[in-house]
């Protein structure tokens, strides 16, 4: 090519689109690394317990690797510009969760949860693949926003018809399987919130009256937020599920703020949250007990009734110290009930130590950050709000449950994303990652070198 030709070509196309690298090879390399790390963890458990590599190690690695490869091929095929990080992070967290559950299964010979969790993980990655393959454009979802909203309400209301399990009415028991419909409702609600706010944000932002430096909304547009608030309190009172209610409300307030930029909404939201929490804390003994546990984690010990779950969880974290006891060598099983689900992080904390825990938190933070980054890169408000909503959902969920088991906030039953035993949760989280992949693919394939305002 001549020099002249070059100038000519440059002159002919005045604003060449910047094509971002696809980075699928990087994603594949990270997936291989993630699978190897998980297999290493699986072997470490066996070596620590029996001195031999567990016989299932190869099958476990092949299964996880095969699933991840299918997901990767789907991304390569239909979302070639997608962010390379969310999928490997999902694989690593899911694999680590399987290792931790397998490790805890060794302590409970009559209750093996890892095989079922592997089935659910397969379903989750299957759903991920289906979403990536079939959902060509996330904006399609906007069209069905109200269907999703209604579906979420139905899913949330369903468990009320079923008996309560351990004080919370959040499970459906069908044919031996326990399903938590509230988990699926989270994604549906995030889509609904994003669509609703994308459509109505101007009305929400520009009406209302100013009070001091805060702009407060008028009564007419206050309707939706009050509805959501009532919904959260309804979930809390009828299902005694403080965590989910907190999650929905937090998600809505964050999205409302991002959509309108009105700090008045946050003030209203916080006020309502405090009022609701105070009322429920007074009238629900289940919730009041959780708050007492949080304020005085060792009160059952002082009363001579032995350690409760929260103090056992704190003991487990403390026993881990900085470097941890090593996989398979801790005693987090002392926590007892829900050690594989709500309290799974205590096992990570004891056996991997603060170092492993910090790495886990960083993985979550990275996943959340990638979501926000996709939101920043996108142009249209629905996609932005969807990305922000999904990322915030993850962040809030991690905060609510990890903060609960480490004594930072009152403990509420909730699954640690990807790590905890629980099929509904794993499937839901894979759906979230699928949507993030889809959104980030849109964002990066449209990228023109300028940041959207």
């Amino acid at each position, binding site marked *: 090519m001549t020099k002249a030709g070059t100038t000519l070509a440059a002159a002919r196309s005045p604003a060449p689109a910047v094509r971002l690298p696809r980075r699928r090879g990087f994603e594949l390399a990270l997936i291989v690394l993630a699978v190897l790390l998980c297999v290493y963890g699986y072997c470490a458990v066996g070596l620590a317990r029996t001195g031999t590599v567990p016989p299932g190690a190869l099958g476990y690695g092949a299964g996880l690797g095969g699933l991840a490869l299918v997901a990767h091929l789907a991304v390569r095929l239909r979302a070639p510009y997608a962010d390379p990080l969310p999928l490997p992070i999902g694989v690593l967290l899911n694999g680590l969760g399987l290792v931790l559950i397998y490790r805890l299964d060794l302590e409970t010979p009559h209750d093996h949860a890892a095989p079922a969790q592997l089935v659910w993980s397969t379903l989750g990655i299957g759903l991920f693949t289906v979403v990536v393959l079939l959902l060509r454009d996330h904006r399609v979802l906007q069209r069905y926003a109200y269907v999703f909203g209604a579906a979420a309400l139905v899913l949330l209301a369903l468990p009320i018809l079923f008996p309560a399990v351990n004080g919370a009415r959040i499970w459906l028991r069908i044919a031996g399987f326990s399903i938590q419909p509230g988990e699926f409702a989270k994604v549906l609600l995030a889509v609904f919130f994003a669509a609703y706010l994308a459509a109505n944000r101007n009305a929400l*932002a*520009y009406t209302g009256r*100013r009070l001091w*430096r805060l*702009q407060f909304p008028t009564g007419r547009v206050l309707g939706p937020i009050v509805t959501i608030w009532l919904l959260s309190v309804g979930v809390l009172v009828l299902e005694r599920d403080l965590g989910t209610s907190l999650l929905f409300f937090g998600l809505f307030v*964050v999205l409302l*703020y*991002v*959509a*309108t*930029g009105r*700090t008045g909404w946050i003030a209203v939201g916080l006020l309502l949250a405090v009022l609701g929490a105070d009322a429920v804390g007074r009238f629900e003994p289940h919730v009041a007990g959780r708050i007492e546990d949080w304020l005085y984690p*060792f009160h059952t*010990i002082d009363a001579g009734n*032995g*350690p409760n779950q929260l*103090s056992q969880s*704190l*003991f487990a*974290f*403390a*026993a*881990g*110290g*900085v*470097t941890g*006891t*090593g996989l398979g*060598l801790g*005693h987090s099983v*002392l926590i007892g009930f829900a050690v594989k689900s709500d309290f799974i992080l205590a096992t990570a*904390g004891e056996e991997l130590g*603060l170092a492993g*825990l*910090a790495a886990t*938190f960083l993985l*979550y*933070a990275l996943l*959340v*950050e990638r979501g*926000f980054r996709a*939101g*920043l890169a996108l142009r249209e*408000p629905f996609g*932005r709000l969807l990305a*922000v909503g999904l*990322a*915030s959902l993850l*962040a*809030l969920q*991690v*905060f609510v449950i*990890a*903060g609960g088991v*480490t*004594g*930072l906030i009152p403990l509420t039953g909730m699954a640690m994303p990807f790590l905890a035993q629980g099929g509904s949760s794993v499937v839901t989280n894979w759906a979230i990652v699928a949507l993030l992949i889809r959104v980030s693919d849109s964002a990066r394939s449209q990228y023109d070198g300028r*940041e*959207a*305002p």
Partner: protein
Amino acid sequence: MSDPGRHPDRAGLPDGGRPMARYIRRAWGFCALLLAALLLNAARVQVVQSRVYDANPANRRAAIARYGQPRGDILVGGEPVTGSNDTGEQLRYERAYRNGPLYAPVTGFASQLYGTTFLEHAADGVLSGTDPLLAPLPLWQDMTRRPSPAGNVVTTLNRTAQEAAYRGLAGRKGAVAAIEPATGRVLALVSSPSYDPGQLSGNGEAVTSAWERLSHDPEKPMLNRAVRQTYPPGSTFKVVTAAAALDAGVVTDLDADTDSPDPYRLPGTTTRLTNEADGCENASLRAAFEWSCNTVFAKLGVDVGARDMVAMAQAFGFNDAGVRIPFGVAPSTFDPRVDRAQLALSSIGQYNTRATPLQMAMVAAAVADGGLLHSPYLVERTTGHSGEILSGNGAHPARQVMSPPTARRLRELMAGVVQEGTGTRAAIPGALVGGKTGTAQHGVGNSGVPYAWFVSWAQADNTLEPQVAVAVVVEDASADRGEISGGGDAAPIARDVMRAVLGG
């Protein structure tokens, strides 16, 4: 915050001038803050509060680690008298005892519920594997958090002597302590009635009920009478008084008259002290010792004076609360604040004078070994997992209690008791045996059943130094008060123990 829509310079932006990117960044900042709070809180729990939570008594981890490996063994004569049972439970290994009641006063118990006592307690670091000496590479051990394998404790006990003492007491309330005079090695330590410490090892229902039963048993089987119970030593204390009198020069000739009346009026009172034996008036020290004349020794004590009597008693180990063998020994007492009447009674082992059986064995040992008293000890050495020596074989302190000539003359007196006095039943053919009987009255108005004492030492004829010193106390020796005497009930037990040592 202010409304950005009202700023004219932002009116040209898309979305009506509301820069959503900024709000997205703030939302991300909020989420990042939440995750950072999690990390900080995790550091608080795992680093700052870690030790506090680890040390919480409700935290089972310390117990799980402690019982996660077999406990080290306590050895007698090269054979372990302990073991460990693998229960397969959360607290995995439980202590087991071979011949538990025989060695209970030495081993104590190691219970998952009630802690440890005696050697199990004193040597717990070695036995449980936490002793820093057991870790060849402490830093590496800290990092890997692997516990060291437990070490063993080798005792100084003589198996046959221990068995002879236990058999001799035959379940009667009492105790035997035997030591090797030349070294201070404890050869026998028996308390009766005893119990099986293995009943307390575990953590189940059976253990709590055994504990309830044992701790409320009126016979007090868990009381270690050899080192933790003091008795009025009665006439056996006359060895100390005689040593003080000889050392202070109050008596220079064993066969000279002592110028003592019978009955003896306690100085400053109208109380008259009498004797059970006849012929004590003006008796020589030798005769008074052989026939245990209270009047003579009460007067001797007063003649020596409180200062020298206290000094001699303390040289033998009385009033010393710090004796450890390695577990603590109850202090034997000789009251230093006494008037002359109380001194007279103290000098015949009454009033506030009290002694453990081990203390009286030390008295006999010092006499036997030429006035030199070696501190008693029970642990020969502690060894690591592969037999390497961790501690022991070191010198144990000794002190001169009385001058060698005094000791030589006291040996003569004590030998006389066995040859022709109250202790003839302790005689052993082929050995020189010295002893002293005692019958200590106690209780309000001396109404209690008296304690029968015998302290003695033995030296085989063809050897240069004594092999054993022993003290025996039998609490309720016999129902008939007249029949009770150290010579009758306690001396045969002492003889069997000494014979076991000499024969072995």
